[in-house]
C-alpha cells in the first residue's frame, strides 16, 4: 500500500451520503412505497400482565379497507422473535407480560383504516398480578414474569460473577473504604426517525424486508424463523436510517417479523411504521439500574479493591439483556488497575417493556458509580481528582479487572493529560472557587471522567465478530463495494470509502458503496459495539488488497506502469472484461481471539479498548436547581482517526446525549405503565442545553490489528459525558449525587441534604 495516492486516511473528506440528505432526497423507510402496499397497525396489550382469554376480530375484519387481522394462531413458523434467548413471541399467545406487547396485527389499505381496525379488535384478558420493580421481582413470592426456560430461576434472567484476588482481605486492611448505591433510570433513544419496516414478496416464495435498522442479519434470522423460511429466501435491505443508538439493534427483529407475517398472509407489500408515541411506549430503552459500589484504596490513592453489585431491570423478555449485563460486569472497574475485584451482576425480569441496547450498552450504569467513587476516595485523601486518576489508569503492560494483560493501544493516560491541559484543570478549579466565593445564586463546578470501552462484541459472543465485503471492478473502471454493516448516521459510508480508496489505490470518487443487502455479503454481524466501521473496513481492505494485486497483474501484462494505474483504470477494467478476468473479490475479517471464563468472569474479553477523558464545567442555580453545562473538553483515544470531522461529530453528539442522560432525560413508571407522551414530555437536549464551544481532541494510540490503526469510537462519548457532568454537579453542590437525572427537583433535594 506504499504507492497509494496522497493518503486519504485522516482526511476530513465530506460525507458523500450527506448530499441526498441536504436535498431531502435520502429515502427513509416511510418514504418508500411498493405497488399494492398495505399498511399495518398493532393491537397491543393494555395490561402489564394478563392472560389472554379470547381475541374477537370479526368486527375489525369486516371494516372497510381491512385486508387481514392476524393473531398468534396464524404464525406459520415459530412464534418467536429470535435475539439471544427464544422467550419473546412475535404475537402473545396466552399471556401478555408488558403494556404494549403485540397481541394481534391488522393490515389495511390505508394507515388510517388499519388504526381504526385496531380499536375494533376486542381482546378479553384476565389481569394477573404484576411486578414492575426488579428488586420486588426477586422476592420469593413475586409474580412469575420470566418465561421459566429463559430464567436461571424465578425472575432472575441472568446472574454473572467476576472474582479476582482477595477482596474481603483487602477491604479489611485498606486505608480508605468508600461506598455508595447509584441508580439510573430509563433513557429513550429518541432517534429522530421512528422505527419502521416494509415486507415485500420477493418472488419464488421469498420475502424482502426494507427498513430502519442496525442489524440486517438479525432481522433476516428472525424473519426466517417466524415464517418458517430458509435464510436464503429472506433478503433484508437497510433503508436510510434516521438514527439508532442501539434502539434499532433488536427491535427491528420484532417489527420486521410483524411486517413479514402480514405480507406473507396477504402476499402483498406491508408497511409498519410506528408513530412517535407508540415508539416511545413500546420499544426498548436503556436498562434502569441499581449499583452498589464499594471501593478500597491505599493512603496514596492507589485503588486496591472493588466490590460491586449490579441489578439491571431487563423488562419482560430477555432480548439483549444478557449481553448488556455482561458488559456491565466486565467493565465495572473502568479504565483503572484494580487488583482485587468482585462483581455480581443480575438482570431481572419485570412486567415492563423489554430494555435493550443503548449506546454504551450497560457501561454508563457502572461508569456513574466508578467515577463517583474515585472522586470520593480523592476527597477523603485530599488528592486532586485528576491526580488520583493519573495514579490508577491502565498503562501498557497492566492487567484489567478481568485480568486481561493490555499491551497495544492503551491511550487513557494520554487522554487524561491532554484533557487536563486543554481544560487548564488547576487554574479552572481556582477560577471556579473564586467564582463561587463571589456568587450566591449560582455555583460553578468542574467534573472529570475517564472511561474504557471494549470494542466489539467480546468474549460473550465472539462468533458474531466478523464481517464480509465484496468489491467488483466494473467494465468502465468504476468500483462497486458492498458491505454488511449499516450507515446509521455515524459516518461509516465515508470511512469505508476512504479505506477502500486507500486500499485499492484509486480515487475515492470512482468507488460506490451500496446500501446493505443481506444477499450480497455473508453474515457480517451487527452494527453495534462501535465495531461497524472497523470490521467492514477490515473486510474491505482484505478484498481491496487482492483486487489490487489482480489489477496490477493485468496492468503489467499491458505494460501499464504501477503509478499510472489509478489514472488508467478504465482501460485496465476494459482488459479485465475483454480477457475474461474475474473482476470481483470477496473480503473477510474476524477479530483477534478473545476469551471469557464464566466461572471466574476473567479473560481477554475484548480485542482492544477505546478510552476517553472528559471534563465538564457546569453552573448550578441553587434557587431553581437548574444545572447548565457551560464549558467542555473531550479527549478520545480511538486509535487512528480516519476522519476528524466525522469523529468530532460523534463526540459532540455523544456529549449531548450524555448531558441528556445526566441532567434531563428519564421516564417515570407507575404500575408497569410508562408515564410519557412522545417527545412532548420526553425532553431531549436542544441547542440551548449543549456546550457550543466544546474542545474535542484525539490522541491516537494505534491498534495494530485495526484498519490503519483505528479502534472504534461510536459509543464512547456518551459514556464519559454523563459522568463528567454528574461529577461537575457534585463539585458545584458539594454533594455526591447517586441518582439520575440531576434535574431541578433532584438538585434542589440534593442541596437540602447534609454535605
Amino acid at each position, binding site marked *: 500500500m506504499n504507492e497509494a495516492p496522497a493518503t486519504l486516511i485522516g482526511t476530513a473528506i465530506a460525507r458523500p451520503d450527506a448530499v441526498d440528505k441536504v436535498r*431531502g432526497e435520502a429515502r427513509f423507510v416511510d418514504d418508500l412505497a411498493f405497488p399494492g402496499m398495505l399498511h399495518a397497525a398493532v393491537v397491543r396489550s393494555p395490561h402489564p400482565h394478563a392472560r389472554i382469554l379470547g381475541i374477537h376480530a370479526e368486527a375489525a375484519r369486516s371494516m372497510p379497507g381491512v385486508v387481514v387481522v392476524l393473531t398468534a394462531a396464524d404464525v406459520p413458523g415459530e412464534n418467536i422473535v429470535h435475539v439471544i434467548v427464544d422467550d419473546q413471541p412475535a404475537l402473545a399467545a396466552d399471556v401478555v407480560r408488558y403494556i404494549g406487547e403485540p397481541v394481534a396485527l391488522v393490515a389495511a389499505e390505508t394507515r388510517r383504516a388499519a388504526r381504526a381496525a385496531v380499536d375494533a379488535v376486542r381482546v378479553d384478558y384476565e389481569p394477573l398480578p404484576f411486578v414492575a420493580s426488579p428488586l420486588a421481582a426477586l422476592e420469593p413470592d413475586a409474580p412469575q414474569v420470566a418465561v421459566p426456560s429463559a430464567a436461571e430461576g424465578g425472575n432472575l434472567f441472568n446472574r454473572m460473577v467476576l472474582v479476582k484476588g482477595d477482596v474481603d482481605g483487602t477491604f479489611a486492611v485498606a486505608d480508605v473504604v468508600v461506598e455508595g448505591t447509584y441508580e439510573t433510570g430509563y433513557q429513550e433513544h429518541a432517534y*429522530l426517525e421512528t422505527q419502521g419496516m416494509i415486507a415485500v414478496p420477493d418472488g419464488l416464495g421469498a420475502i424482502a424486508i426494507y427498513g430502519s435498522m442496525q442489524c440486517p442479519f438479525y432481522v433476516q434470522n428472525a424473519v426466517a424463523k417466524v415464517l418458517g423460511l430458509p435464510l436464503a429466501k429472506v433478503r433484508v435491505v437497510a433503508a436510510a436510517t*434516521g438514527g439508532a443508538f442501539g434502539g434499532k439493534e433488536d427491535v427491528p427483529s420484532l417489527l420486521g417479523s410483524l411486517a413479514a407475517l402480514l405480507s406473507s398472509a396477504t402476499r402483498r407489500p406491508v408497511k409498519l411504521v410506528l408513530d412517535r408515541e407508540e415508539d416511545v411506549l413500546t420499544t426498548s430503552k436503556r436498562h434502569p439500574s441499581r449499583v452498589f459500589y464499594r471501593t478500597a484504596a491505599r493512603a496514596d490513592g492507589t485503588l486496591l479493591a472493588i466490590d460491586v453489585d449490579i441489578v439491571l431491570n431487563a423488562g419482560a423478555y430477555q432480548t439483549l439483556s444478557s449481553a448488556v449485563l455482561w458488559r456491565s460486569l466486565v467493565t465495572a472497574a473502568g479504565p483503572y488497575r484494580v487488583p482485587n475485584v468482585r462483581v455480581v451482576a443480575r438482570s431481572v425480569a419485570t412486567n415492563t417493556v423489554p430494555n435493550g441496547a443503548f449506546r454504551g450498552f450497560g457501561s454508563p450504569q457502572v461508569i456513574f458509580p466508578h467515577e463517583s467513587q474515585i472522586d470520593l476516595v480523592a476527597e477523603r485523601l485530599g488528592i486532586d481528582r485528576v491526580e488520583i486518576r493519573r495514579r490508577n489508569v491502565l498503562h501498557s503492560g497492566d492487567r484489567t479487572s478481568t485480568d486481561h494483560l493490555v499491551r497495544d493501544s492503551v491511550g487513557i493516560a494520554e487522554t487524561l493529560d491532554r484533557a487536563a491541559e486543554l481544560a487548564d484543570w488547576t487554574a479552572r478549579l481556582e477560577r471556579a472557587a473564586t467564582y463561587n466565593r463571589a456568587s450566591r445564586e449560582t455555583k460553578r463546578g468542574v467534573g472529570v471522567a475517564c472511561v474504557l470501552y471494549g470494542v466489539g462484541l467480546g468474549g460473550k459472543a465472539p462468533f458474531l465478530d466478523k464481517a464480509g465485503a465484496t468489491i467488483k471492478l466494473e467494465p468502465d473502471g468504476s468500483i462497486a463495494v458492498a458491505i454488511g454493516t449499516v450507515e446509521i*448516521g455515524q459516518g461509516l459510508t465515508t470511512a469505508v470509502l476512504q479505506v477502500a480508496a486507500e486500499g485499492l489505490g484509486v480515487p475515492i470518487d470512482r468507488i460506490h458503496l451500496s446500501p446493505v443487502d443481506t444477499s450480497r455479503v455473508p453474515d457480517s454481524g451487527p452494527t453495534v459495539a462501535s465495531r461497524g466501521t472497523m470490521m467492514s473496513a477490515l473486510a474491505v481492505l482484505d478484498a481491496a488488497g487482492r483486487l489490487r494485486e489482480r489489477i496490477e497483474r493485468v496492468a503489467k501484462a499491458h505494460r501499464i506502469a504501477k503509478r499510472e494505474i489509478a489514472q488508467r483504470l478504465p482501460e485496465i477494467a476494459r482488459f479485465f472484461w475483454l480477457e475474461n478476468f474475474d473482476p470481483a473479490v470477496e473480503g473477510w475479517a474476524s477479530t483477534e481471539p478473545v476469551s471469557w471464563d464464566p466461572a471466574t468472569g476473567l479473560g481477554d474479553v475484548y480485542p482492544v479498548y477505546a478510552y476517553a477523558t472528559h471534563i465538564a464545567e457546569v453552573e448550578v442555580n441553587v434557587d431553581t436547581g437548574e444545572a447548565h453545562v457551560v464549558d467542555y473538553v473531550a479527549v478520545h483515544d480511538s486509535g487512528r482517526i480516519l476522519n476528524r470531522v466525522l469523529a*468530532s461529530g460523534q463526540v459532540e453528539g455523544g456529549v449531548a446525549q450524555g448531558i441528556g442522560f445526566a441532567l434531563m432525560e428519564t421516564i417515570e413508571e407507575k404500575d408497569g405503565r410508562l408515564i410519557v407522551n412522545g417527545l412532548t414530555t420526553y425532553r431531549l437536549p436542544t441547542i440551548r442545553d449543549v456546550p457550543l464551544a466544546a474542545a474535542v481532541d484525539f490522541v491516537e494510540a494505534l491498534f495494530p490489528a485495526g484498519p490503519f490503526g483505528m479502534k472504534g469510537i461510536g459509543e464512547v462519548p456518551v459514556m464519559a459525558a454523563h459522568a463528567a457532568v454528574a461529577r461537575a454537579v457534585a463539585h458545584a453542590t458539594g454533594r455526591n449525587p447517586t441518582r439520575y437525572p440531576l434535574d431541578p427537583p433532584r438538585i434542589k433535594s440534593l442541596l437540602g441534604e447534609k454535605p
Partner: protein
Amino acid sequence: MRIHLTVNGTGRTWEVAPGDTLLDVLRREGFAGVKKGCGTGDCGACTVLLNGRAVNACLVLAVKAEGHTVVTIEGVAQGGRLHPVQEAFLEAGAVQCGYCTPGMVLSAVSLLSHNPDPSEAEICEAISGNLCRCTGYVKQIAAIERAAARMRESQ
C-alpha cells in the same frame, strides 16, 4: 375539499380532508423530504416555509395553506445548484443521519432570508425548535455562519 397553493414555485390543486395536516398532504403528494419526527410540534423535522416563514407542517391544517406559498426542502436547491446553507451543511459536517436535516436547513434558510448577519444567539434561537439526536448542534452553527458569510459576499 380542494385547496390551491404554490409549492416550490408551482401552483397545485389538491383534494384534502378537513383534518389533514400540511405535513400529511405534502408527503402524500410526493414531497418526501418533509420529515415526520413526532407529529406533535416538538421536533421540527417537518419544518417548511409558509409564505417565507419556518413553520412545523404537522401543526398546520392543510386547508389553512389555501392560497399560500410553501417551500419544502425539495425547493431549496435551485436547479442543480445547492443553496449556500445546504453547501455549508455538507462542508461543516453538520449532517449525520440526516433525518433532522431538511427541517434544520429550512429554519436556517428562513433565518438568513430575514437576517443576513445573525449572531450566534440568533442562530440558536432560529434552530432551537429543531431537535437533532445525532450531532451536538455545534457543526450546524458553524454551517449557518459560513452560509451567512457566503451569502453576504455574493450580494
